[in-house]
């Protein structure tokens, strides 16, 4: 077994796919010097033709990746900060995503968008701390938010092999994770297949990205009193509704913890779908950022607006006790 860090897992996924498929190329700012470390060693190994440093022209290079994909390349774009997705949003949501249907299926757009350190990254303030995965799930771009190194590897490999645009969010809160893995067993992880990290019988906690680790910690703390199942959807679009339904068949009680703004976040979609179609014996709850949150700079203000373990613990206890629907 080997210790694999989340960062190294991303790096390894890109390296393996570039080795396997000469069409995979990397676009981004400072990717040759690898300031995020995700692209470390790539230019040395694959050369500057396949690892391209871009001017600060996100809208243009996102569109360039679409064009390159239409003509046979499989670009990976690294965005240094989550807000760059806002700059490139038209090119992703309205261009790359729409080619397949609008051309009557004549073409595909195999581009992967990778955001290392999404969400709050400690002290980077309002314009660098968003976590807009729900926005992409909403417009229908395939969206993955891996929580562990092995899943980061597996989902990034799958994204690179997928024939559609895929956004991969690597939450800042998960980037430091390490895991003991058998490197030869690392494998692609299919989109739309969730993972039960911890089985339980009384409450299902659906946790997204880095929050999986908070959910596991809280589940462990509560283990004497409440049996908590931790379900990690891993991809938000497509979503593993069957996996969630199976979990709720076991527990009948649901708490979602999601680093999105509350209104129109994926947490709301999960609650709605469970309420419409699944087995619930008590009103569900979600822990999110507030509606329309802008993260303030100061550490205690930034923390106050993100989902916390305390909030999650309280929600689990409340849902576990709730009397049930009549």
């Amino acid at each position, binding site marked *: 077994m080997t210790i694999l860090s989340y960062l190294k897992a991303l790096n390894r996924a890109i390296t393996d796919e570039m080795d396997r498929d000469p069409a995979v190329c990397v676009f981004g*700012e*400072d990717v*040759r*010097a*690898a*300031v995020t470390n995700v692209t470390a060693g790539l230019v040395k190994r694959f050369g500057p033709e396949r690892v391209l*440093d*871009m*001017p*600060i*022209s996100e*809208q*243009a290079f996102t569109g360039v990746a679409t064009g390159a994909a239409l003509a046979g390349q499989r670009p990976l774009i690294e965005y240094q900060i989550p*807000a760059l997705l806002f*700059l490139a949003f038209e090119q992703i949501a309205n261009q790359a995503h729409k080619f397949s249907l609008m051309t009557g299926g004549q073409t595909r757009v195999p581009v992967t968008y990778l955001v290392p350190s999404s969400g709050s*990254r*400690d*002290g*980077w*303030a*309002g*314009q*660098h701390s968003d976590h807009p995965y729900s926005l992409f799930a909403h417009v229908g771009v395939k969206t993955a938010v891996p929580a562990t190194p092995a899943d980061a590897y597996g989902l990034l490999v799958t994204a690179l092999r997928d024939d559609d645009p895929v956004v991969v969010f690597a939450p800042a809160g998960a980037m430091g994770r390490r895991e003991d893995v058998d490197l030869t067993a690392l494998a692609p992880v299919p989109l739309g297949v969730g993972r039960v990290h911890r089985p339980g019988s009384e409450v299902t906690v659906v946790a997204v990205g880095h929050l999986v680790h908070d959910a596991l910690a809280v589940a462990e703390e509560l283990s004497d009193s409440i049996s908590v199942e931790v379900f990690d959807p891993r991809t938000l679009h497509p979503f593993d509704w069957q996996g969630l339904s199976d979990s709720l068949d076991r527990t009948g009680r649901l708490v979602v913890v999601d680093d999105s703004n*509350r*209104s129109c976040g994926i947490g709301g979609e999960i609650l709605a779908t469970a309420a419409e179609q699944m087995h619930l014996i008590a009103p569900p*709850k979600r*822990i*999110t*950022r*507030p*509606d*329309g*949150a*802008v993260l*303030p*700079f*100061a*550490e*205690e*203000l*930034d*923390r*106050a*607006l*993100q*989902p*916390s373990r305390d*909030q999650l613990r*309280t*929600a689990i206890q409340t849902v576990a006790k709730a009397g049930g629907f009549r």
Partner: protein
Amino acid sequence: MPDSAALYRTVRLIRRFEERAVELVRAKQIFGGIHPYTGQEAIAAGTCAALRRDDLITSTHRGHGHVLAKGADPARMLAELAGRATGLNRGRGGSMHAADFGLGVLGANAIVGAAAPIATGAAWAARRAGSDRVAVTYFGDGAVSQGVVLEAFNLAALWRAPVIFVCENNGWATTTRTADAVAGTITGRAEAFGIPAARVDGMDPEAVLAAAAEAVARARAGAGPTLLECLTYRFDAHHTWEHTARPRYRTPEEVEAGRARDPLVIQGARVPEAERERIDADIEDLLADAVRFALESPLPDPATALDHLYADGTRVRAGAA
């Protein structure tokens, strides 16, 4: 005649402010780090010396120098960097968003190039309101490849908006050389829209002031925008994370050569030694007080984290209910 001592004072203030701020980052008193402005002080000092108190500026991720040169209180600025309730933005903005609307500082901006159209709009509005205020928007060499900057050039030129585009060309955008990112020239980009553009020695505060004064006069007179490409060098890291991560992209020889011309030395040579010493001592006292003020100031109350989200105080749902 430029006031050489005043320019020296501004350069010295920014230099020492940045050095103290870097110390506070190392001491973990500043959360998240900063983009030091060290080496580029002549540009903020020279341009702001050409402005009135009621003129407007927008700044960048590397913005401390601009905000200080426009007259912000170093103590409240430092309190902002330290995330205190007494900071310019009440601890909500931090290093990359320092703003002081009382001084026309419409805010530093963390998105490269994003402030250029904002300054253009503010300049247009100032003229529409019947004033002769002008706006200066600072951005780096990296920003000239953002579409929105070029779109702002177009609007500013069409409307003859009283805006001065100040490009701080320090040779690098993080680890990317200007030459590897910019086709053609920076001045040529402005000239293509009919905007007069000049290259300026961005290490010499008086050269910057002379060029800025001319551009400001043009803008005030209704003759429209100007672009100044100020050639400079970033003495320190792109961001303080480099102090620990140490990415290699500039050779030590290059950094040494880049630091050879120092705005502090250039401007210092124009000020009699006794006066310089007095200014230096003064600034040490000022900054000692500023550090004390910042570190003794209260932290913001977490219960107020959503304050100021909306102009009218609209309340929103919390994240847990």
